[in-house]
């Protein structure tokens, strides 16, 4: 039969959903234990929320699903949410801006067109956002929270890369490009073409050396940043203050024993970052990332409130989950009706209800198919003196039972 699924969309089958829920559960538990509260934003948002300067890059904007709604005669376009952070910042601005501090988390799907149709056009994210708060501490908090989620999911060999949007912006400024050229260069960098930065020679050889050093070297502790600070004393004030910010964060991470790599190129796609940026890599894929975006809320005409956050890319994390240890989602007990007679149906439904009330999972079957993977199977014939036959599939034992109470007792005793 022809596959009727929309191009670029994905189905999540029962076993996918088990892994999906496992990620969601771990994520939710971790967030709650750090004091974050769950929110959910609508699938449709206005396009202008995302066209505001400094939110999405033109190349991302050209891939959003935008259209006119049924009442779109005013020309106001809506989009299928292309990003998780911007709607949550909008939610905060609209509803919670009176709060000095808000820790929010979400599990959501995002939509972006992908030309070949081989990659997903609908993807899932687990994200957390921190609005307000003092400098430095929230940055460290979200990195540690993301790390904890990844650790509890049992994913190994995950690399953490750190960068800083302020450093990149300061370097771009030093190149003294025209506004048009600077915008183009920013686009190239956000699309991952960092070599463009080395090709664009500045008039100041020290800047070229600084760019070469930052692109070529990958430090593993705050010492690296101290070295940069000492080796390039003539760097601009903007560069130095961003460097201080990153030094502050890395020092805390060093003391907490959190390992990372400093890679200036670890910023991708989003234009709204203003401070630290980070991404998690495993098996060659980016499985999550985040950073500081202090201008986002003000850009939405909200108050001047700092913010930072991260998201885990569920589709990639799912591929890396260690094999399932827990139950496969099938019921523990199968209640089988011997035939489709009304009194047998009634008995089966009543028995299954009693089993569920007692905390067991019970599935019904009237097809006579061969059962598999159940702990117990109860065959209901309805004929006295023993209307039930109970099979213990683990011990491979079979016994007759006279009443539902007897079945409940045996099953509960295990």
């Amino acid at each position, binding site marked *: 039969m022809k596959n009727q699924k929309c191009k670029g969309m994905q189905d999540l089958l029962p076993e996918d959903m088990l892994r999906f829920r496992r990620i969601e559960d771990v994520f939710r538990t971790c967030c709650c234990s750090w004091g974050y509260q769950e929110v959910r934003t609508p699938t449709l948002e206005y396009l*202008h929320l995302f*066209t505001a300067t400094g939110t999405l890059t033109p190349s991302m904007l050209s891939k959003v699903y935008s259209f006119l709604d049924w009442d779109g005669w005013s020309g*106001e376009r809506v989009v299928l949410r292309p990003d998780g952070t911007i709607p949550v910042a909008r939610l905060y601005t609209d509803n919670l801006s009176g709060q000095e501090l808000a820790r929010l988390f979400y599990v959501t799907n995002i939509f972006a067109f992908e030309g070949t149709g081989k990659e997903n056009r609908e993807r899932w994210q687990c994200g957390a956002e921190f609005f307000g708060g003092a400098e430095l501490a929230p940055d460290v908090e979200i990195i540690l929270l993301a790390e904890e989620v990844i650790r509890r999911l049992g994913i190994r060999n995950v690399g953490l890369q750190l960068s800083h949007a302020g450093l990149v912006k300061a370097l771009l400024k030093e190149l003294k490009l025209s506004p*048009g050229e600077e*915008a183009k260069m920013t686009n190239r960098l956000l699309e991952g073409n960092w070599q463009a930065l080395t090709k664009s020679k500045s008039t100041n050889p020290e800047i070229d050396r600084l760019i070469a050093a930052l692109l070529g070297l990958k430090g593993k502790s705050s010492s690296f940043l101290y070295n940069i600070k000492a080796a390039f004393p003539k760097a601009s004030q903007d560069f130095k203050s961003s460097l201080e910010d990153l030094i502050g964060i890395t020092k805390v991470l060093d003391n907490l024993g959190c390992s990372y790599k400093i890679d200036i190129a670890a910023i991708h796609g989003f234009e709204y970052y203003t401070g630290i940026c980070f991404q998690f890599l495993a098996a060659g894929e980016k499985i999550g990332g985040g950073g500081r975006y202090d201008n986002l809320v003000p850009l939405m005409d909200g108050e001047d409130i700092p913010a930072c956050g991260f998201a885990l890319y569920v589709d990639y994390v799912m591929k890396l989950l260690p094999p399932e240890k827990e139950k496969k989602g099938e019921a523990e007990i199968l209640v089988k009706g011997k035939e489709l007679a009304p009194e047998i149906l009634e008995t089966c439904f009543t028995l299954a209800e009693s089993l569920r009330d007692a905390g067991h999972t019970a599935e019904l079957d009237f097809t006579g198919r061969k059962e598999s993977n159940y702990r117990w199977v109860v065959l209901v014939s309805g004929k006295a003196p023993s209307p039930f036959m109970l099979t213990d599939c683990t011990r491979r034992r079979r016994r007759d039972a006279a009443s539902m109470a007897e079945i409940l007792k045996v099953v509960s005793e295990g």
Partner: protein
Amino acid sequence: MKDYRAGYIKLALPKGRFLSPTASVLADIGLGFNDYSDKTKQYRLRSTRFPNLSAKILQEKDISIQVAVGNYDLGICGLDWIEEFLVKYPAGSLVKISSLNYGEGSIHVVASAESGIANLNDLSDGRNDYRIVTEYPNLAEAFALNLRMRRFRIFPVWGAAEAYPPENADLAVLWGKSGADIATQGLIPLKRLLPVTAFLIANKESLENKDLSRILTCFSSRITAEPPTSMGNGLDISEELKVSRPLWQAKEINLALPDGHQQAPASQFLKRAGLALQGYSEESASRRPSADLDWLGIKVIRPQDMPLQVANSNFDLAITGEDWLREHLYRFPSSPVKKLFALGFGAVKIVTAVSQEMPVADIDELRSLVQSGKFAPLKVASEYINIADGYLRDNHINPYKLIPTWGASEAFLPEDADMLIDNVQTGKTLTQHKLKVIDVLFRSSACLIANKNSLASSDRREKMEFLTQKLRAGLR
């Protein structure tokens, strides 16, 4: 799977602005078609030289889409319509082969002289909500996104984009011969997006699998070094450019009048109603005619564009067709536009028609035929895509595919579409093209439409009533 062995090659040729130059180029390179001239009434043409080559004359806007979907192997049309398609569907099956080096003017982004916009930086820095009017909504959107305009709304129009600024739009993306030519229309050219030259295009799959070499060889003498076709960066705004500002003043009540076929009967109607207008007759046509009522502003635009413009309060009243009002309301059910009364001219029927060969007499038989799988999906060509969509859904025709057209839907049948939904006056054209009507959707004629909020406004009510009463007097 297509059969590539048969060797039939289909070429889509343009109507309108590129017809004459294309016909002479084709004759020059030995690819002439007998009936390809301004006077032809034919849509289908056969090559005088290659028995396996056939061509069809289509609206330019349709050619890039038709080549991309594979109904034609090759096509010739303006670069503007090709880019309008490619900017939205870059992964599609359309391949640009070469410029044919004829054509005129460019597509420009222009600003109204009144808007206070002098260059592109004003747009990206501004926090305003810019209204962009254009026949090229995809190019306009790409332009606005690339420029990181914070907030903008795009109003697609069927034509006359230059008539909208300053009061009804801040920016327009439109064709202009040159920057100087645009300036004479009271507009400031901000950026030249692309030159409008004729281009040879091909369907990707045809190019990969089919032998088109004999035809392509004919073009080889025309395929030379390409002129720059990408979106240039240079602003062609020069110091000397003198922008002539049209005399314009905000009016209390604004009325839109139709151009094209509807203009002559509308003009006669207004004369009968006793509304004296200057600049709305065949002898002196202006985009802004004037009336002897000093509070009334009048503009001449396409009837297709009026309902959306009235909904957005750019006009309080407009004379358009009931067909276009319905088309608008099918798309935007909550739109604040309503019909006041029919004006008694421009009567047409909106019909569904199929090839005379198709063994169906009505829509019920067609439904059965589609259900049997013979014409599944049913390909329906229409310039009223929302009416067509609603009609097909209401009649449980399933599955179907809509092919939007820009008029002359009959040219699509039977090769490129199975059914059309279009307007007819007498039905003669349909018979000439061996088509038959199987259903009448509704009858439409010119009508007066109004913005509901204007009707309810205490400031305007009196003058609105005065004007509608005056127009009512024109009814015979």
